């Protein structure tokens, strides 16, 4: 059986990740344009922040080897039921984002709400259908009529 990971291990991974982000950002700043007669160029602030991020990531990394904390780290395993549900929710909203303009809110939102409610564990189908449609229409009307914000409707854009 695989040994569960501890928080210090997770901190080690986070430390390495922080160093990589800081290092990449610093490396990118070296190709920034140098301006004449500008005492503090566009590269200075990101460089300071990158170095500081690397420094504190390294401190976390070192700390993780000396801590007595033995708590189990939260898992990112795809076999975990919680992770599966969370990824399903993420997948549904990413799909909503990708189809936002083409399919439109009035068609997309009830479907997304219904799917999200199903993934969250709701099983009262009639209530779920009514709420998905009701919430969509109320939000759409509110943004359109009260706040004067037109959410894209895709093929139903003629309504505006």
């Amino acid at each position: 059986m695989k040994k569960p990971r501890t928080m210090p291990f997770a901190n080690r991974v986070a430390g390495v990740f922080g160093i990589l982000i800081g290092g990449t950002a610093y490396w990118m700043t070296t190709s920034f344009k140098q301006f004449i007669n500008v005492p503090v160029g566009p590269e200075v602030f990101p460089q300071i922040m990158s170095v500081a991020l690397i420094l504190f990531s390294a401190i976390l990394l070192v700390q993780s080897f000396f801590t007595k904390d033995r708590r189990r780290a939260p898992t990112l395993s795809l076999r975990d039921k919680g992770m599966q549900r969370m990824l399903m929710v993420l997948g549904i909203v990413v799909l909503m984002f990708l189809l936002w303009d083409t399919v439109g809110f009035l068609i997309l939102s009830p479907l997304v709400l219904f799917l999200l409610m199903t993934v969250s564990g709701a099983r009262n189908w009639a209530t779920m259908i009514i709420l998905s449609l009701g919430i969509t229409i109320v939000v759409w009307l509110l943004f359109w009529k009260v706040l004067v914000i037109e959410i894209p409707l895709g093929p139903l854009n003629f309504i505006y």
Partner: protein
Amino acid sequence: MNWDLLLSSYAGVMADPRTVLMVFLGAAGGVFIGAIPGLTATMGVALLIPFSFGMDLVPSVGLLLGIYCGAMYGGSISAILIHTPGTPAAAATVMDGYPMAQKGEAGRALSIALFSSFCGGIIGAICMTFLSPLIASAALAFGPAEMFMLAFFGLSVIIAISGKSVVKGLMSAFFGLLIATIGMDKTCGYLRFIPKGVYGLYEGIPFIPALIGLFAAAEVFSSVERIARGEQSSAKTTLKVNRVLPSWADIRTIWKNILTGGLIGSFIGAIPGAGGDISAFVSYGVAKSTSRHPERFGQGTPEGVAATESANNGCSGGAMIPLLSLGVPGDSVTAILLGAFIMKGIQPGPMMYVDKLDTVYAVFAALLLANLAMLIVGMAGIRFFTKIISVEKKILLPSILVISLVGAYAINQNVFDVGVALVFGLIGYLMQKYEFPLSPILLTLILGPLSESNFRRFMQIKDGNFFSIFTHPICVVFMVLSVASLVFSVFNQRKINRLGTESGDGEIPPTQEG
């Protein structure tokens, strides 16, 4: 001060039914707009400006001030109930407001937020009435060096909002400061860290979608995960709200935080370019540093909620000071108000205090009335607001997610912002999971661009001579305050760690199954 004119102007405003009605309508609309993530006070005021065209000056300004004050409080409702600040000014309220709601004290948290917002607003209005010329001249002395040091002072509260691990808090903060440099550099117009064709990031990371992602989306992702594992109940919570105002015991605990927060908000609000978000974080840092129980902050303490809410509402009065006495708006809402004044043929500025003193006093009265309206509307709504968390989680969570994403879209009406909210949702989810605090990212996204642009402007003016900053008295004051804040924060953190060790927090049992 012309007391007779002041009193007659106040009486005139309070006795005018049209003004009273407009202020109450504005406050109700403001609370509603503020409570929806993504919609800000600025947007509310801008939306309702056309409705004020046909009105006289005082009722129209009253309507707009009602929205302003209402939205400032409204932002705390979603911050407390659903872990999503309705407005940037309520970002700091999440830190203690949401844990209070999680403990079953949502009604108490809302009543404390409401009462503190009201008191903060009144302190702001009093400062505006009596200290306008004094504060305005101090605000006018703020150049790039002073603004940089103000931002630096704001950043000094990072340790105070870092939670259990200062190292993780600082990593979050520097990550936030780093990503705050994405986009077009304001001094040279140079594009930094932007892949070709990603136009949505030219102006930097869009702040409100990032805020919605970090708090709303991340919280929904985490909750769905916890419910699936059986670590959190999906059943509806029955919540009984016995009172709509805080108890005397609570008021005795929070009055110092309210007073300090109100004054901090009034002062910071008066500085052009600084607003409710900065003042709320600064006030939170001060409250934690001076508290006898700093270990309670972040766990759901009324003092934390009171400090942030009084500060962000104190800003409404503060921001009016440079508008009326100098003709310079203190924030984006007062910039729109400046337009409203000009449309009515009145030019705010020093001459307004000579030629239109009755109008100045009427505006003071309208702000006081707006705060009173916010209190009444808020009291009437508390029982209704708390019903939100009584909804079953499997219905509530999807609704929050979809409404938040629409809110992220609404701010710029750009679908790219929805993507930003989702990316930040994922970042926030992972950070929360591995115990990295989220508030430092938010603070640095606000203060990063402010500190960088002003620092570089100052260095440009002084031809690279940084040490000339010590010749600016305001900068020296902020430096001393920053050092004091850092020392207090470190001292408090040691105290918190010691208390945690004594109570055996170092050996927390496993959080979940792998």
